[in-house]
């Protein structure tokens, strides 16, 4: 993976999560982890070995995991509950709603294997609805970090704030693009300044947005790229400012077009600064088996799609 002629290192967000958890575990005795039989896959396994007395394995029981997390939090601990995004928050949404959010319990819900990049496992395991599910809940913060580095920062930041946080990321290794950028919950990062169009992305799609901007620059289109890692609370100020400047906004996410990042951005812009907008994401469909690359290509969650949409729009204006 190359951007600006630089070769980028590839690592997975979940490895970032595992690393951050270990560090947190050392720093903060109140941090505990609850797993639902996916400790290795979600990368909380190392924590379990290092801090066995602060690790709870509840088995394949995501609803109970959410409730146990709430109980631990109500007793003053900081639990991280870990599974795949299809199961948590997919299976345990109502437990998250009442036991966690209504109680304002300090539970961090960390879910791996979000998005199409789960690949071969197929549609059942590809969470493309989880951002929408979590975004509607009062008291919930929703974060989709873009890479290995940002996941670590997101986990550390989530531990610092009091209250429920949902962090979602994929399974695959993705290029590290966030470098040493600052991470603040609720504050989007402008990764590249531009004046003709704004591309707002989260998760692994941030890389695609940067790659598209690179290519567009060669064609004399100047794209601003915003890494909107926090989907809730959304950074209204940064989004509005950019939209005022470029007057065109594209969003892209590894999630359904309904209810995710694009919707969140549209909710802001339609009310505060209406500009033409395109939402790129999964078009109200289920995925299927295939390699991550094949699926992202087939369902057009990539840089080429961004370029195509921007050029088509340029022609229509």
């Amino acid at each position: 993976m190359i951007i600006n002629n630089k070769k980028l290192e590839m690592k997975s967000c979940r490895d970032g999560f595992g690393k951050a958890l270990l560090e947190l575990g050392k720093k903060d005795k109140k941090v505990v982890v609850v797993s639902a039989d996916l400790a290795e896959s979600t990368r909380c396994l190392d924590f379990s070995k290092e801090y066995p007395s602060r690790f709870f394995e509840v088995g394949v029981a995501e609803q109970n995991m959410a409730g146990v997390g709430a109980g631990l939090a109500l007793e003053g601990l900081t639990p991280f509950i870990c599974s795949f995004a299809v199961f948590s928050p997919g299976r345990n949404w109502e437990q998250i709603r009442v036991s966690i959010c209504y109680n304002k319990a300090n539970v961090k819900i960390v879910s791996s294997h979000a998005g199409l990049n789960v690949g071969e496992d197929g549609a059942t395991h590809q969470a493309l609805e989880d951002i929408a599910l979590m975004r509607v809940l009062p008291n919930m913060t929703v974060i989709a970090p873009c890479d290995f580095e940002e996941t670590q920062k997101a986990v550390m930041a989530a531990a610092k704030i009091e209250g429920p946080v949902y962090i979602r990321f994929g399974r695959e290794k993705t290029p590290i693009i966030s470098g040493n950028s600052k991470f603040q919950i609720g504050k989007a990062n402008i990764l590249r300044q531009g004046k003709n169009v704004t591309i707002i992305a989260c998760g692994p799609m941030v890389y695609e947005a940067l790659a598209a901007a690179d290519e567009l620059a060669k064609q004399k289109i100047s794209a601003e790229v915003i890494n909107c890692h926090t989907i809730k609370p959304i950074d209204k100020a940064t989004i509005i400012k950019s939209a005022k400047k470029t007057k065109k906004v594209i969003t892209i996410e590894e999630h359904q077009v309904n209810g995710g990042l694009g919707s969140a951005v549209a909710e802001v812009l339609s009310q505060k600064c209406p500009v033409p907008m395109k939402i790129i994401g999964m078009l109200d469909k289920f995925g299927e088996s295939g390699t991550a690359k094949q699926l992202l290509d087939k369902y057009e969650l990539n840089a080429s799609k961004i370029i195509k949409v921007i050029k088509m729009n340029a022609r229509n204006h």
Partner: protein
Amino acid sequence: MKNNIKQLEKMANTLRQDVIRMLVEAGSGHTAGPLGLADIFAALYFNVLKHNPKNPKWEQRDRLCLSCGHVVPIRYAAMARAGYFPLSWLKTLRKLGSKLQGHPSYQDMPALEHSSGPLGQGVSVAVGMALAAKMKKQKHFVYCVTSDGEQDEGETWEAILCAAKYKLDNLIFILDRNMIQIDGFTEKIMPLTHLHEKYQAFRWHVQKIDGNNMKQILAALNNAKRIKGKPKVIVAHTIPGKGVSFMENKWEWHGKAPTVEEANRALIELKN
């Protein structure tokens, strides 16, 4: 605040009258379950629980989780009588601005320990609290009132497995075995036969009692506290609607509040 059996029986009767007055004033709510549980709540708040109504978040208190949140009027009545808040608040049940929400609301009343109502959730929260207590080497107990209808929920059994795995002997379930749920008798809606054996098979310590018999309630709770190495359940056979002849054992009274006339008849019976 350890009341004796006579005092506790009297208190249970007072709580039943409170519940009737609260529900008729609210105009909606659950009647059968709360009346059936009056003896258990009198025992908990006036004999068994280690608690301080003036300092509800006292670190060493016993935790009382109410998983079947719809029966909360009986808990509110017991809390008011124990001094958690003024008796006058009972009349605000289910009204706009009240701390006595229709189902337990933790943000409105932190002494409730957690919010509940959606069945199956409180049992997991109780397991989490018991795990936390073990981890922190705290000495208090976590009591959790659950109901027979709630045993239909998958999450309940997830929590039961988990409590056994971690040998949570600081966790005591009180299971309201009143044989009713919303749509009818439990054994018709979803048979729970051999509940006793089911819990035993899940490696819990099980006691079966008459949940309207104060002597048995106290004995079972005290015995449960002594058992080591496993979580404990008291299957308390109660009479739903207990104390009011036209409500007793009638599942129709699960989620219905009395009319003024019915409430008056109920209160006359309870005062006798």
